[in-house]
């Protein structure tokens, strides 16, 4: 196969991922896209019409699980409130049972004692499932670099979206959720298929 001429780089935004296009139009392929394999993007993201329809339905009603741990939980409660209304995305039904939830928003610092219940809840969720690490404490341990806080929840569950800030504004959390929706619509598989699940 002649590899002389460089293949045109296909970007995620060509597959409809809105946020990439809006933010930085001239940026090169991101680490994420490279990890997906730019060459395999077509294979990975090519979606049939049926798949597109299913994904559209999944994003419009992705129900989160009530996993509020600490301060970020208060901001998570405020996106359900009337000013930053999460019901417009179909997500105001926070399910308490992980069996009925699609999305696990880990909001708050995870102590080692809580890591085991967190992992159990993640395992009890049915596929497809997504995890958002909300706040710096869930993403990386945050300001607590000590004996008792898990330095990043991605040590035990695969994470799709990391949202920084301490605590994230409700708009920041919604931006994270919207990006997750777009990624799913564009065809990016959830994190456990990409990264594998730690055992």
């Amino acid at each position, binding site marked *: 196969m002649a590899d002389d001429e460089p293949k045109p780089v296909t970007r995620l935004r060509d597959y409809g991922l809105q946020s990439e296009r809006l933010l930085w139009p001239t940026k090169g392929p991101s680490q994420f896209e490279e990890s997906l394999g730019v060459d395999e993007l077509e294979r990975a993201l090519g979606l049939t019409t049926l798949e597109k329809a299913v994904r559209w339905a999944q994003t419009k009603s992705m129900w989160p699980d009530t996993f509020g741990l600490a301060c970020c939980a208060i901001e998570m409660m405020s996106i359900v409130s009337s000013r930053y209304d999460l019901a417009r995305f179909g997500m105001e039904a926070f399910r308490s049972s992980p069996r009925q939830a699609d999305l696990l928003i880990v909001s708050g610092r995870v102590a*080692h*004692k809580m890591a085991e219940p967190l992992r159990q809840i993640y395992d009890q969720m049915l596929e497809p499932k997504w995890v958002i690490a909300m706040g710096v404490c869930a993403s990386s*341990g945050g300001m*607590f*670099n*000590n*004996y*008792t*806080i898990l*330095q990043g929840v991605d040590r035990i569950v695969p994470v799709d979206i990391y949202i920084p800030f301490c605590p994230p504004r409700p708009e920041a959390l919604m931006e994270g959720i919207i990006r997750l929706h777009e990624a799913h619509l564009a065809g990016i598989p959830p994190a456990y298929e990409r990264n594998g699940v730690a055992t």
Partner: protein
Amino acid sequence: MTQWSDLPGYVSERASADMATVTIERERIREACEYARDGLGFDMCVDVVATDYLEWGGKGVSGYIGTATGRDLNKPMTEGLQVLPETKPKRFSISYHLLGLRQGAPRVRLQCWAEDGESVPSVVSVWPTCDWHERETFDLMGIVFDGHPNLERLLMPEDWEGHPLRKDYPLGGEPVRFSDAE
């Protein structure tokens, strides 16, 4: 003025900025607490705190010690010399903060000292609120309370080894480049 020397087991007293600190012998702390509750009218035990003084004063303090009014030339601080804070009698101090629910909000701190391995009589029978405070102290500092009905780990997982708040227990976490924590 309250006569602190009436407390059983009284050793010494010291007036701090906020309240009197009365040192009590370790074995008689429960009687002292009972006397404080019944005789001196301190109805409530607000807090039980243990402090680990391992290596206290190991790094001497020198230089300017900040106060609101600036440097007082009549109290010349350390004059550039190393000054060590006063030495402590034993490794652990256990402070019981007591509060009287009446006019003037009288408070007192009853303090007893213990070495590693020495046990302290529990005051759960005097104030039931000390149940969890003493459990937390045991969990984080490793001080055993005699007579506590349920001395188990409270905040750390049950199978945790070590007592995290001791000075010889490392802070943990992961190393961060270019930070002053390493």
